[in-house]
């Protein structure tokens, strides 16, 4: 069981899709799944070498193969709770203690997790994996776990970037990974109320595909939607790219069913809003697997949009770009998605342009560049790009588009075409693959996010980027790092900002440690500049240390007392959050 053949075990995504430098030294993207698949990216090599001071001569491939891990005892033998296993057998729920299955569910996609796997290092892993098939199976498993005192860690899509899936090394009980992947059905669709009742193990792209077949969509598209699960979204308070139309997960959810050691928690009706004390959904959303397993969710659906249009705008500098996004938010006319990349990311995006098919296109590109830099006087080292996605009925989209471009023009923005916009969004899905390429050549990196009031956006971007550069230097990184950001969501009162940070680690004895210290410093800087601990990645174990100052003592106490009541024996013992 499990998707281990289709998926990489020590990197991102599908096994058949990866970046590599071919014999001619040109970058290409393998496979057939993406628009970029099978294409040559002529400028990536120069960008890569120029930005990081990396060289194709200096390779740092993953040192070990999967086989080594599984057959040479790198994985500790499972600590099984025999009585639990016996009972599990008797209720007929499938399970496994194969090393392969266990290792696959022992990590998310933090840099240190992937780096360790590439070096063949494996820490504490779950002792057993179980695959419930439905809500009732989960109820049985949780009952047995309580009865036999085993530790349960729910597992959805495995795309966590907060160390949430790491098994606590101090855990002495048998750890059971509860994989929800078999609970992947849409149980019903209610076209009158535009809701769908879905099992929580369903993966984002499957949910969207199945709904699309019926003419509907949820519109929830986090960057990880190819691999992340509905239950995972609920457990981390996920946010989707198109939240401006559809809302974030907390806006989409109508009803949640969760199995806890105390029993099942759910509301009694599907009313669209209630005044019945604090919303218990808000104890569940963001609980990060510490209280129970989300099994079924009723969520809003919408008819599929009639028309979609991408777009992009070039601004002379980042400040103007941010001012434009702020104005768009003020007028509450944000398109389905609007994102602003800084100059470094613009350059990066440029490096991922595939080989152009004809002289004519390349001539056109040259003309565009000439127009923007020479005629309009934009400095190529300052300009930045916003990508846009409009959705809805055709007429309204065109009207909306005009409104947004008019605002942009007030801030010196020039429309830069659909193509650039579409490529921008495509990059979202392939960017995670690029990290694996970097890791083959001594480059490590990651992204992290925050949310911040509008008046602080520019300050936080500048200060965090600068802090990263400063910290890298102080910690002995030999090459200037890539330190870049983008504004990915707009709200009435602020924005979500994403930082990307990567560096060439040649010459460092413990690159992951350096990486972690820099990320830590960057997070401190974010907090000092009025940013939040997380906008949608969650806390996990990676950001736990800042929870108390984030929530206040009383706030922590409230969360703790909920945990103590719902799960007094810490059956859901992944130790996230608190």
């Amino acid at each position, binding site marked *: 069981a499990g998707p281990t053949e289709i998926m990489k075990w020590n990197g991102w995504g599908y096994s058949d899709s990866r970046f590599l430098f071919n014999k001619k030294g040109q970058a290409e993207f393998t496979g057939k799944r993406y628009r970029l698949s099978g294409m040559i990216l002529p400028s990536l090599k120069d960008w890569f070498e120029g930005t990081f001071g990396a060289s194709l001569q200096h390779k740092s491939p993953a040192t070990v193969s999967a086989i080594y891990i599984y057959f040479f005892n790198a994985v500790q033998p499972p600590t099984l709770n025999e009585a639990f296993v016996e009972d599990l057998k008797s209720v007929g729920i499938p399970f496994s203690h194969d090393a392969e299955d266990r290792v696959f569910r022992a990590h998310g996609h933090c840099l240190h997790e992937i780096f360790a796997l590439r070096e063949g290092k494996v820490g504490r892993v779950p002792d057993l994996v179980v695959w419930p098939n439905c809500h009732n199976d989960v109820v049985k498993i949780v009952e047995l776990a309580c009865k036999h005192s085993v530790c349960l860690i729910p597992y959805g899509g495995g795309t966590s970037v907060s160390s949430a899936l790491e098994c606590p090394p101090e855990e002495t009980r048998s750890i059971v990974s509860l994989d929800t992947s078999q609970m992947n059905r849409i149980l019903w669709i209610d076209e009158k109320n535009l809701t769908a009742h879905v099992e929580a193990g369903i993966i984002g792209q499957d949910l969207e595909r199945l709904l699309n077949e019926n003419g509907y969509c949820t519109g929830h598209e986090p960057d990880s939607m190819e691999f992340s699960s509905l239950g995972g979204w609920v457990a981390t308070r996920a946010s989707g790219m198109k939240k401006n139309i559809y809302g974030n997960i907390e806006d989409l959810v109508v009803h949640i069913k969760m199995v806890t050691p105390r029993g099942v928690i759910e509301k009694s009706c599907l009313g669209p809003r209630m005044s019945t004390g604090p919303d218990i959904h808000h104890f569940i959303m963001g609980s990060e697997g510490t209280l129970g397993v989300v099994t079924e969710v009723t969520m809003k659906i919408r008819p599929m949009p009639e028309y979609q249009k991408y777009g992009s705008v070039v601004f002379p500098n980042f400040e103007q770009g941010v001012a434009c996004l702020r104005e768009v938010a003020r007028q509450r006319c944000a398109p389905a998605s609007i994102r602003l990349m800084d100059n470094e990311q613009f350059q990066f995006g440029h490096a991922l342009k595939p080989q152009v098919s004809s002289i004519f296109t390349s001539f056109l590109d040259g003309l565009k560049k000439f127009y923007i830099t020479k005629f309009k006087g934009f400095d190529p080292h300052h300009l930045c790009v916003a990508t846009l996605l409009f959705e809805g009925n055709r007429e309204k989209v065109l009207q909306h588009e005009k409104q947004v471009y008019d605002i942009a023009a007030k801030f010196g923005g020039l429309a830069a075409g659909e193509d650039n916009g579409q490529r921008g969004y495509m990059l979202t899905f392939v960017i995670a693959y690029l990290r694996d390429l970097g890791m083959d050549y001594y480059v490590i990196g990651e992204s992290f996010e925050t949310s911040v009031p509008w008046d602080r956006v520019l*300050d936080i971007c500048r200060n965090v980027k600068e802090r990263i550069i400063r910290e890298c230097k102080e910690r002995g990184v030999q090459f200037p790092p890539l330190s870049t950001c983008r504004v990915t969501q707009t709200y009435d009162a602020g924005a979500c900002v994403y930082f990307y940070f990567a560096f060439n680690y040649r010459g460092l004895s413990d690159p992951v440690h350096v990486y972690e210290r820099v990320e830590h410093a960057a997070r401190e800087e974010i907090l*000092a500049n*009025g940013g939040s601990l997380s906008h949608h990645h969650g806390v996990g174990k990676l950001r736990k240390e800042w929870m108390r*100052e984030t929530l206040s003592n009383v706030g922590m106490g409230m969360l703790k007392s909920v945990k103590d009541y719902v799960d007094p024996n810490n059956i859901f013992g992944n130790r996230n959050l608190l």
Partner: protein
Amino acid sequence: MAAKPPYSHRDPMLKKRDDFEDILEERRNSSDLRYALKCYTPVVYKGVTPNAASLLKTTVLQSDQLHYVVDQLSKETGVAADVIQEEASAILEEMAHRQQLSTVRFFAFTLSKAFKALFRSIHVNEEGIQRLQQAIQEHPVVLLPSHRSYMDFLLMSYILYTYDLVLPVIAAGMDFMGMKFVGEMLRMSGAFFIRRSFGGDKLYWTVFSEYVKTMLRNGMAPVEFFLEGTRSRTSKSLTPKLGLLNIVMDPFFKGEVFDVSLVPVSISYERILEETLYARELLGVPKPKESTSGLFKARKVLSEDYGSIHVYFGQPVSVRSLAQGKVNRCHFNLMPRHIPRRPSDETQCFVNDSAYSLVRAQEENMVLKPWVLLASLLLQNQSQGLLLDELTEQAVWLRGLSREYGAFLNWPDHMAPSEVVSSSLSLHRDLVKISGGRVQLALGGQAGPRQPCSSPITEEELMNQAVVVLSCTSYRNQALHVFLRPALLASAIHIATSAKKEEVYNSFSFLRNMLSNEFILCPGATLQDFEEACYLLGKTGALQMSQQEMQVTDSGQKTVNFLTAMLDPFLQGYQVVCRYLCEEATEALTEKQFIPAIRTFIVRLILAGSLRYYELLSSDLQKNALAALLRLGAIRKIKVADNVTLKVNRLMVNSLEDTLGGKLPTQKAVAARL
């Protein structure tokens, strides 16, 4: 006492300092006109926004900060917002600089001429200039020069122009504006003018702080101001003022800039232009109002020799590293940043500590000339003076001691000590006289202060002599920071009732607290200062310390005597002030009457022969003593109608006097109260 030291405590002998270059040398060998017209293309801050300079005023007037305060005032007073906005605009107009290159070039030319006439050399540490140049590119820079002369800020701009650095924008006191033409010239060279006091004026404060912050945020030019607030008339560093420092740190606290670099600059004059002017002022001859004609009268100074100037650009201090772990910037998260707020206690404390450590950084890099040592010695031997040989010998001894204590002494080691001494004496011939091989302060006809048997002198003669003494003390004071901590310890040992370490510490703590308006002594750093003093006295073998006891060694007696004598005038002075308050002061004594009254009292004591230190006539000392007594609660201010009267707690003042005189042990009670 648990506070962390604001500076690193290590052997001061090991301090590394840069070498100097004389910038006047080139001026003497090439055309001043060509220099004034040279191509001037300074490197600028990497984050500088184009057109920022021309938009400065508009940016300030349109800032959220100003709008907020204007609205608030309008609501409070009922005056229309646009009227208040107009007022703000007028304030800004009065304040703003109008720096232009042509004026700068004019100054470059005229100052070249003037400097060459006045000074032998202007030494600058070029490594410091390089560090500054680097800092300017990376972060907004604040220049913090010491302030001893009117010359200071013209000199600073002159040096920056010489080295092709961005010219600073300088906070200057409004009194300069009185000199119509000169005021405008200074404005065009980059000065902006602030009123001396605007305590409660919210609008003024907002315009002013926004003006400074806008310049910093945009990184247009280094902002320069004087931490000490005003020129020190005594050459002692003044207790730092925190207002402007608070303002320039604020953009960092609020995350508006990544960092701010503070650059302490130490300007040392071998001979201060305003030497006798200051002495007169301290003696109560009112300060001449700055006027253009007054400045022209000052032309006669052009014919004199003022020796050399040393300008030392210190290590840039990053506000970010300074604030690391001391200021939690998250405090600014919960309110819009444009709403004015009193800084938190934590911030206030941090700014205060930083200010002290910056002033100490200035002090550390002050260049001391041999004359400073000579003046110290001559003041301690006023009655008889010293034979030239004796003086030389003592000076050589003191040279050694001051170097051990980390003084930045500019003693030409290649010359014979006797030559050094005589050339120093000749530069300061107004202050000394040599007769029969004996060197003495030039105190007019009568040699030295009156002997008990000699004929009485008049008050006028006394004042003339005091001018010389005070001029001399201003040189001695330059070295005070070097000897201060060991001197406090030496005096503490002197007044302590036993050699027990604890007793000595109590006395030390008492003296230090008593004198903390007089010298740069960072609040809360008593223990560090005590340890530093012990270390220095121990290192030179003057002090022997066991677990419980501290004993002056035989060989250390000379050092300890010198140190005690250095502090003695101050201790005497504070005692006299106490005595006056106990014995003479009436219930109705007002704050305004205090200085003239105490001066009359001291004159009387000196003329009667019962007081020998003329320097007690310095109003600086008297004011500091008063401030200390107020701080300690021995005096309270009481507002009566338009007057502020001083209410004296005689018991407490009396006990402070006795403790200072060593007649009363440093009581636990007093110590606890302090």
